[in-house]
């Protein structure tokens, strides 16, 4: 690609040469022709470097000290990335800019490079020159934003000549795929859930303060005919002059089942700010805390159409399997179709220019001549669309007649564009996915699946189990009757249920001072305040509705949500109906 500078110099050089030779001004002609010859020589050298030498560059990326093609990362934890560009043979490229492709699910840590931040530089970008077989290396620190997957694609290379006359872009592929597991945090339990006066009970054994066959004394009561003689407390009976029977505690674990909502609404948004990220993070924390006291934890993952069950279990292996399942369901795989828009095309073109610049070169990806459209803007759009169609046909091995179909079929083109962006690591945000108004059809599907799953789990459960519904209900504060019925059924079988809702703005819906609204100046802030007020009202309504059913509600952004779940587990273990109530 020629720059403006070269364009102007060529224009002036040609003009000077023509004028100089026509008017027999030797110096002018000589100087102008020399400038043209110089630009021609630079062009030859630049093209040789780009076409021949650039192909010999290889990229090796080291992520957390490993160069493997796959691995595991954790959300929010530091990832040390080091990129090395190695020439396979001796090359000489005096000026190139290297930029490691940044997936959308990755945020680059700029904490130790404040100077560069102020001037707009990015740590994953570097200017360099390569001479001989010496390699270039740069490193940066990043953090995955949300659970699911993360793919490093390669390094974008921008080559210049030293005079700034020509620019060329290429992409050196270096693919590495990582699964990103949710980071679970340890939760401080308000009430002790383990016996502190003695050694830890063996795995799977818990104190349930109900009469049972355990080894710990629960209480003494009067003898009832039929009590086993070995249970009679003889010393106490002698003191009181009547037979007394010892009752022992029951030792059973409290099984916790997590119902995780992975429907469309929870996946929509930027990585790390999706409702699903809050849900998955909290599910991991709850599972870890419950397993730390040896409670078995089960998992039910619900989306708009299906529910996947994972049997209860305990131990590290089960915990990691559970995180794997959560991460797997956090990956955006099959999004709903999107409408074809110009913004979608622009975004796709931008990404394609960066990731596949070699496939968009006009000499290779040629556009057939047509008379229409005549207008320059429309014509440019048609050219772009034709080139993109050719690239998609190559990337996705489409049939040979597909390029023409993609050019004229907006729906099909939108589908392929969406697939391309999601493959490039884009989240379910506009323009990749449209948010449908209220998503009523999704709500119905989601509730059906959730009700079925809850009813099935209740049917299989024993008693005093804990069900945690991590469901986005804020936009739907009146759960349908069937969900209320399923909750009533679970409550009737003495199970405990907790509902935890994600919050889109990552802050707890709390009381909002309405008088503050007047002081907000900008329209967007007013809008966000109005949205927040709506959410608060909806949260209050939801809490009122579910409280009537005996179900506590918490919000994922609230740090006490996990504690609430553990407190409910403690209640289930004690057999109490409330924290201050009696058995």
């Amino acid at each position, binding site marked *: 690609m020629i720059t403006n500078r070269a364009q*102007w110099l060529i224009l002036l050089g040609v003009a000077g040469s023509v004028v100089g030779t026509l008017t027999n001004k030797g110096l002018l002609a000589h*100087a102008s022709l020399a400038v043209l010859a110089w630009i021609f020589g630079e062009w030859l050298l630049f093209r040789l470097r780009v076409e*021949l030498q650039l192909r010999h560059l290889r990229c090796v990326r080291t992520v957390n000290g490993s160069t493997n093609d796959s691995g595991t990362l954790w959300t929010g934890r530091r990832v040390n990335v080091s990129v090395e560009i190695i020439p396979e043979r001796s090359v000489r490229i*005096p000026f190139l800019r290297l930029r490691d492709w940044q997936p959308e699910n990755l945020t680059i840590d700029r904490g130790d490079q404040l100077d560069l931040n102020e001037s*707009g530089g990015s740590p994953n970008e570097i200017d360099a*020159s390569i001479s001989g077989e*010496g390699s270039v290396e740069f490193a940066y620190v990043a953090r995955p934003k949300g659970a699911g997957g993360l793919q490093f694609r390669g390094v974008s290379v921008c080559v210049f000549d030293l005079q700034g006359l020509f*620019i060329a872009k290429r992409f050196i592929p270096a693919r590495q795929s990582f699964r990103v597991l949710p980071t679970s945090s340890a939760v401080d339990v308000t009430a002790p859930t383990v016996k502190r006066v003695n050694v830890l009970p063996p795995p799977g054994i818990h104190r349930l303060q109900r009469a049972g066959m355990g080894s710990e004394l629960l209480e003494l009561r009067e003898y009832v005919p039929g009590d086993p003689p070995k249970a009679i407390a003889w010393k106490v009976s002698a003191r009181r002059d009547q037979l007394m029977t010892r009752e022992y505690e029951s030792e059973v674990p409290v099984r916790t089942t997590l119902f995780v909502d992975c429907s469309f609404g929870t996946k929509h948004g930027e990585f790390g700010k999706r409702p699903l990220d809050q849900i998955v993070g909290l599910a991991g924390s709850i599972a870890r805390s419950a397993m730390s006291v040896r409670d078995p934890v089960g998992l039910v993952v619900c989306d708009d159409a299906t529910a996947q069950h994972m049997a209860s279990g305990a131990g590290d292996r089960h915990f990691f399997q559970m995180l794997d399942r959560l991460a797997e369901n956090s990956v955006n795989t099959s999004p709903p179709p999107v409408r074809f828009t110009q913004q979608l095309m622009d975004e796709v073109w931008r990404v394609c220019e960066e990731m596949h610049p070699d496939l968009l070169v006009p000499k290779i990806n040629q556009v057939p001549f047509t008379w229409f459209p005549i207008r320059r803007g429309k014509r440019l759009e048609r050219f772009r669309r034709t080139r993109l169609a050719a690239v998609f046909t190559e990337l996705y091995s489409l049939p040979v007649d597909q*390029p*023409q179909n993609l050019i004229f079929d907006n729906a099909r083109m939108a589908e392929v564009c969406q697939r391309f962006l999601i493959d490039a690591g884009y989240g379910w945000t506009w323009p990749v996915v449209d948010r449908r108004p209220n998503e009523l059809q999704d709500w119905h599907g989601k509730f059906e699946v959730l009700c079925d799953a809850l009813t099935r789990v209740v049917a299989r459960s024993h008693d005093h189990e804990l069900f945690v519904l991590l469901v986005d209900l804020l936009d739907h504060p009146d759960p349908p009757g069937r969900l209320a019925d399923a909750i009533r059924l679970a409550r009737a079988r003495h199970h405990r249920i907790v509902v935890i809702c994600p919050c889109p703005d990552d802050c707890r819906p709390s009381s909002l001072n309405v008088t503050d609204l007047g002081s907000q100046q900008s329209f967007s802030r007013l809008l966000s305040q109005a949205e927040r007020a709506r959410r608060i009202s909806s949260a209050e309504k939801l809490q009122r509705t579910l409280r009537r059913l005996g179900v506590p509600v918490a919000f994922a952004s609230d740090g006490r949500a996990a504690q609430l779940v553990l407190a409910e587990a403690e209640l289930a273990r004690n057999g109490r109906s409330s924290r201050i109530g009696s058995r």
Partner: protein
Amino acid sequence: MQQANDRRPRFDSPKSVAPSNDALAASTAYIIFAGLSALFVSLWFSPNDSIITIMVAVFLMMTLGFRFWSVALIFLMVQVGLFLVEPGSVGGYSYSPGSSLAAIGVLALLISCCRYLTLTSSPAPYRLSNRSSVQVAYFHATREPRKAFAPFGVLSRDDSTVGPAELFTMLARTVLPVMAISVMLTLVPLDPDMPNTARLIPPAVRTITLGIILLAICVLANSLLSILVWRRLSPSEARIFARSELSKWIHREVSRVSRRRIRFRNSRRH
């Protein structure tokens, strides 16, 4: 292995960190070269003209902040100066070391300015609209930080990785084109006695001849490079090229079929 990450001096930012010694030396060297070249070029003008030329050159070098057009402006001014100062020669071009030295001076001036600009800011992409170009030029002039350029797709250089050897390659870049052009101009002389078969004045014939020779060299070089590059295409590139060549022949028919199919499908939906 070059550990280039630890030194990333910023020239284009008011909050920049101090540039490294290498970078400072390179950019300073280029601006000194530019000044010296301007002085050298001005020697070819008469004393009064030389003062004016020096002033113009200094003024233009002060406007290097405008980035995009400054080199072109300098070149234009030099061309105008040469056009006004030099009397037209009747006898055509005769090789003289003086004219070659003048051409070397002009080329050294342009290359120095270009390199200075490349070191301190950025090459601009092609196909910026005029309005965008003006905005980007304004940002360059006001030394805006790099992020201000991002919406325009303009890249700015934030590091000087030019080795000292590049300073010497510049000399080769100035001498070789001038010598090549000298040879070519000597081979294609202005011949006033040439029979006027094409009903053109001799300078026009010479201009056309030179143009044809230059064009032939360009086409030949481009063809050779294309052949060289063609054999190194990746399989994906080759497939896309083959498909695009095929679609050139049949795209009208296939387009018609596609459009009818889509129309038929839409009509069935409604």
